[in-house]
Every structure is written in structure tokens, then in C-alpha cells.
């Protein structure tokens, strides 16, 4: 690939990303009243989206072979327990990550 072709390729990726991020704002501009249905979606989507994002992070975990996703499940359980117990965001995230690193580096 020539440098010009590389620039065009990167440009295509930038354009695609910008479109997915800006499209809702272009279709429903701030100046106009947003339809009730879209307002409803804006309210109920985030909790569903975060469920989807958690699964997105785990999409490449192999539950059928290898460690069967045990380090991931144990670490997520630890994050959940820590968070319900202390409700300290950084503590839950750091605690879960340290447990996960320990698990994949030593036990699994």
C-alpha cells in the first residue's frame, strides 16, 4: 500500500467511527423536540448497553475448553462482592483486577 492509500484507509475508518458516534445527534438535533420514543430509549438503553458491554468484554473467553472462563467468573464475582459490600468504585475495580492478574499468572 502506498502512503496515500494508507491515508485513505485510515480516513475510511475515521469516517465510519464518526458516523456511528454522531448519527443520533444529526437525526435528532438539539434545537428540535426529540420524539418521545427516542427519549424513552435514551432512558432505558443505558442499563441494557452496560449489560451488553460486559458481555462484549468477555466475548473472546472460551467457556468450553482451557480454564473454562474460571478466572473471569471468579474475578467478576469478587468485583460484585466488593462493590455491594463497600460501594467504592476504584476499590472494586482494582481489587477485581489484582485478583484476575493473580489467577491468570499463577493458578491458570
Amino acid at each position: 500500500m502506498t502512503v496515500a492509500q494508507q491515508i485513505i484507509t485510515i480516513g475510511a475508518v475515521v469516517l465510519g467511527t464518526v458516523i456511528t458516534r454522531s448519527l443520533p445527534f444529526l437525526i435528532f438535533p438539539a434545537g428540535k423536540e426529540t420524539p418521545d420514543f427516542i427519549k424513552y430509549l435514551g432512558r432505558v438503553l443505558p442499563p441494557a448497553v452496560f449489560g451488553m458491554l460486559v458481555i462484549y468484554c468477555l466475548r473472546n473467553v472460551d467457556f468450553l475448553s482451557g480454564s473454562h472462563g474460571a478466572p473471569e467468573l471468579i474475578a467478576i464475582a469478587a468485583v460484585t462482592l466488593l462493590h455491594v459490600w463497600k460501594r467504592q468504585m476504584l476499590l472494586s475495580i482494582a481489587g477485581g483486577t489484582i485478583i484476575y492478574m493473580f489467577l491468570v499468572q499463577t493458578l491458570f
Partner: protein
Amino acid sequence: MQKDNVKLKALKAAFPHTIPILAGFLFLGMTYGIYMNVLGFSFIYPLIMSITIFAGSMEFVAAEFLLGAFDPIKAFLMTLMINARHLFYGISMLDKYRGTGLKKPYLIFGMCDESFSINCTAEIPEDVDKGWFMFFVTLLNQIYWVSGAVLGGVFGSFIHFNTEGLDFVMTAMFVVIFLEQWLKSSDHKSELIGLGLSVLSLIIFGADGFIIPAMAGIFAVLTLMGASEGHKKAVKSF
């Protein structure tokens, strides 16, 4: 002077929210820089790509595009598919990004998974300017990501300490945000729909193709629920 105070206050309020991302993005950004380095690209590539694309997983895929045959249409269409989840972020942020003035284009441009997550859920103190808060969250995240990518691209081959598993910091953050949503809501319908349909879609379509069917399913079920609730309300008011 007054204006600078507003910005500084927003920056101070925003920074603690971005600490997990500081750890995650420096690490993942470095992984990306090292990956590019191993593929034979100068650090200029991760530098420019992390600034202009600023979508983590997409930048890894873009590296593959650069190595393959020249096909910008394919690159464009694949980007739309991989990043389709951003459409949901935009719909969720229509209200929150309203009235942010000149900062709005950057807020939208920089709306990666992590910036969206914080800006969507953070409880911003009353006396902090919301627009600047969200601006600094987005900017700090991008600075972390670009710094990681460049560090990885320049020093990639010299780094030898055991970081295996550090990338879990991003998963942990999304789990915590999901839990926060769960603990705050009275019924857990949306959470369960998002989680359940994504798992179902992942089992059926596999890791590379599950996002779009999952989004379609979530959209359909939430729409039906909204319609039936609207119906109930209409009956009630009648």
C-alpha cells in the same frame, strides 16, 4: 479568571473518575503500540491513528486493513458494523450533551466506550459545570490512550514486566458500572434484557458477529415494552 476556575474545578472533579481508565488505557494503548511496532509500523502510525480514530478495538482492526489489499469501502463498512454500538450511546447522550456548545463536537467525536460510560453515569456535583466535566473526562481518556499507544510504539520492545491480565481493568469497570445501574433501579428489566440477549446472541452468532443481532434484539424488546407501557398509561388516563 472566573472562567479558568470553572475549568479547573471541572478538571479536578473529572480526574478521579478517569483513574481506572488511566490504568486500562495506558496498558491497552501500549499493547496497541507494541502490536503496531511488531507489525513493522513506525510509532507515527499509532500516534496518528489513536488521535484520529480513537476507538480501541477498531484501531487493531485498522492495522489489519493497512496490511491487506487496498479496499477503503470494506474498511468503511466493517467500521460501521464494529462500531454500531455507538449508535446506542448517542441516543442515550442526546440530552446530556445538549447545551455544551463548542465542546459538543469533541464530546461526540471522543465518545468511546469508556468516555460514554463515565459521562452517562457519573453524578456530577451541582457546582461543577457539566459540559466541562464531560469534556475533561473525554480529553483525559484520549490523552491516556494516545500516550499509551506512543509509549508502546516507541519503547515496545524494551518492556518486560508481567502485565498479563491487566486488561481486565476495563471489564471490571464495566461490571461496576453495570452494578451501579442495577443497584439504582427498582425493576431490573433493562439490565436483564441487555445481559440476557447479549449472551444469547453470543452463543448463536459467536464473538465476531454478535453485537448487531444483540443490538437488534435489545432494541426490539425495549420497543415492545415501551409500547405496552404506553398502552397501559393510555388506558389508565382514559
